[in-house]
């Protein structure tokens, strides 16, 4: 395994934890959505790095195609989530779920 691919795989692992933290720790839904996107690209990066471990054969096209599909679907999901949370904010006047309003859960 060549060194630089390992860096990106480990960075992907770090981003997954980072995104998960933001997703669970924030009550604000837009912050959660942003964190979820960070977690998603961490998953893609780890997957892509895992596929690039044997550079002698050149880049593997199949994982690349899967990741491109994933990136587009991630945007679609984000757009739906934004539309939902804007409607929620308009009807409630806040951008957090009612059960998350009273600070962090016990």
């Amino acid at each position, binding site marked *: 395994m060549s060194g630089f691919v390992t*860096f*990106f795989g480990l960075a992907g692992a770090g981003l997954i*934890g980072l995104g998960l933290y933001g997703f669970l720790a924030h009550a604000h839904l*837009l*912050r959660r959505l942003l964190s979820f996107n960070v977690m998603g690209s961490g998953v893609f990066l780890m997957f892509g790095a895992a596929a690039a471990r044997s550079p002698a054969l050149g880049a593997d096209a*199949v994982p690349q195609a899967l990741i491109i599909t994933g990136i*587009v679907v991630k945007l*679609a999901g984000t757009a739906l989530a934004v539309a939902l949370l804007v409607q929620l904010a308009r009807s409630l006047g806040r951008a957090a779920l009612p059960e998350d309003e009273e600070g962090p859960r016990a």
Partner: protein
Amino acid sequence: MTGLVFDLLLCALLLAAGLAAVVARGLFAGVVFFIAYGVFVALGWLRLDAIDVALAEAAIGAGLTGVLLLGAIGQLSRAGAEAPAPRPNIPLALACGGLSLLLGAAFLALPDAPGLQAEVAAALPISGAENPVTAVLLNFRAIDTLLESIVLTAVLVGVWALARDDAWGCRPGLPQRVRPDGVLAGFGRLLPPLGLMVGVYLVWAGTKQPGGAFQGGTVLAAVWLLAAMAGAVTAPRVTDLLLRAALVAGPILFLAVGIAGALGGSFLGLAPAVAGPLILAIEVALTLSIASTLALLVLGPPEARA
């Protein structure tokens, strides 16, 4: 050696920008860091020799997602929803850090496994595309791409379903007010011709070189959104038949080709003799649908004009 140092720095920047995006005090600052983060991730894909993914990440991950999130901030503040500074949660941070360590250890322990490079290279001459990623997307794994294009349409239906009853039939998104001599108005006229050329080139080059319907379509969507934000074009009404036709042209042509393949033996199977022109036709129709769907997804549900 310089390559290794560059990669190490890039990974550090990537993690720092991701951290800043997640824990930033202000939401606006978080989104700006997220956009920078997307550009660093795209650079990472370049280093991993995945140029198609780098293009998609730069256009979609950093570009359109950034616009979408910035737009959401504006809508939320208009709705009166404030964004308090987040409080750190140390036990949770430790748990998530532990998860990252476990994932990292798992990555290091992965056994060496051959990829599918040899299989893709062997079938590339009869696939109708010279770019292996395009061959996978539109021939070998065409079913994924077909379903993905249908998912995009389904999500747009979901977004439009959130429109209020009195707004149905109106134009999507809030009206834009632009200072005629402002920066946005200037760039809204300066950049679209360039972006149009880049977008069309990415689609055209996609069968031979990195690029393709998704990357090109995203650039075209961004060009149209920029022109719309600058007030140079107005969004069509959601009931517009031409718009509806553009939205479904790609999936329908793709499905028709798939069914024609089924009659000839295998669903979505492309005969080697006609695979090249068919892939180009699907790419062009898909680009139209992807560009219009993504632009409308970012604009949001139709809004009644006051």
